[in-house]
């Protein structure tokens, strides 16, 4: 990990503020080339924001993010767009273009960027759709797809330009067990077969732990734990253990801070 060449994405001292709210407070991350790295944490810790920072859609308030040796925030718009052609991103909703068919959605980045003849675009699209198992759905419109299928189409689109990395934003949220299983397998397989670097942002512990090589746990703007899935399950931090094992009570209390229960029940205030 100390070898700089191994890291596709390096985050150093990243600070990000949204108004007066601090989302990230000086975090360091190393995402190794060819591995599946997961960023985990409770809802509202800005995990999606982290992906947007890496993709250059928002600028950090402080610190630096470098992707494949380029410091994202310093790139011109043109350079940034060049870099993005080599990044795929899978949005939580799939973000398919609703007025285009499945085929045209996957063809979209190819038609916009590759300048390939239409026959070759067609072959490539069919290949990518075959890889996610949805070649038969090419004529459907996004509104006719289930959530899991939409995500798979979006995945086919994300790998259309053969990127060096893919960022997954909450890929498992709201999926039934079968499509969850399909996605887990796809993410792992694509990573192996295409030699991708994958970044998964998620709070689904079991699925993420099953495919991630390395996990960072974020909470309140800081990295509170890191390691392989195994290491984290037995982490020293009580907080990390609560999160990984999904226990209802612990350092993160079950109860929202409130006045004393008995006292509030007995008090006459607020009664009619």
């Amino acid at each position, binding site marked *: 990990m100390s070898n700089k060449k191994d890291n596709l994405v390096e985050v150093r001292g990243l600070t990000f503020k949204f108004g007066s709210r601090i989302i990230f407070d000086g975090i360091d991350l190393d995402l190794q080339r060819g591995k599946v790295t997961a960023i985990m944490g409770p809802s509202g810790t800005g995990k999606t924001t982290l992906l947007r920072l890496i993709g250059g859609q928002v600028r950090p308030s402080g610190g630096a993010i470098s992707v494949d040796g380029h410091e994202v925030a310093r790139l011109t718009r043109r350079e940034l767009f060049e870099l993005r052609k080599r990044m795929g991103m899978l949005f939580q909703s799939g973000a398919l273009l609703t007025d*285009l068919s499945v085929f045209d959605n996957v063809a979209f980045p190819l038609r916009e960027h590759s300048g390939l003849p239409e026959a070759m675009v067609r072959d490539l699209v069919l290949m990518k759709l075959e890889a996610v198992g949805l070649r038969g759905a090419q004529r459907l419109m996004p509104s006719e797809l289930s959530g899991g299928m939409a995500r798979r189409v979006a995945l086919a689109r994300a790998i259309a330009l053969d990127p060096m990395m893919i960022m997954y934003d909450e890929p498992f949220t709201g999926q039934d067990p079968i499509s969850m299983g399909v996605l887990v397998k796809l993410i792992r397989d694509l990573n192996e077969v295409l030699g991708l670097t994958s970044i998964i942002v998620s709070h689904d512990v079991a699925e993420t732990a099953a495919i991630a090589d390395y996990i960072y746990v974020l909470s309140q703007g800081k990295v509170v734990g890191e390691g392989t899935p195994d290491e984290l399950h037995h982490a020293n931090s009580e907080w990390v253990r609560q999160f990984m094992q999904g226990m209802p009570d612990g350092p993160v209390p079950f109860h929202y801070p409130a006045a004393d229960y008995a006292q509030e029940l007995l008090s006459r205030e607020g009664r009619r």
Partner: protein
Amino acid sequence: MQNTRLVETMVGVFIAAGAAALLMLAMKVSNLNAFSDVEGYEVTAQFENIGGLKVLSPVSVGGVRIGRVSAIDFDQEDYEAVVTMAINPQYDRLPVDTSASIFTSGLLGEQYIGFEPGGEERFLKDGDQITLTQSAMVLEQIIGQFIFSKASEGGGE
């Protein structure tokens, strides 16, 4: 996405309809075609007062439009308005002693020039001037005269 051919056809129909509408506004509603037939032979006439006469106001004989006012000038020697009229070439048998008057169509309507043909055997041609003219009736003047005459009648008693 809708059928591409249908979309393209409909867009074509839309643009054609818009162009047709503009054409209709230009040709049927406005005086754009009147500009083109302003050519013809030109005669001038001097008036003391032209009232609300404007360029493109009609010129008619017996209620038939035979031309339009093509220019309005002011003669600084005679202190009179000089009105140039373009007369449709098919009406080339107007006697030289034709008189021109400025009338109002209806009580408050627009003003136009009416020709009253004379009896000469020679006809008006390009560049001629009509000498017999009658100015516009200005409503305020008429009312003013009326009041004045009433007042002077009252003073005489």
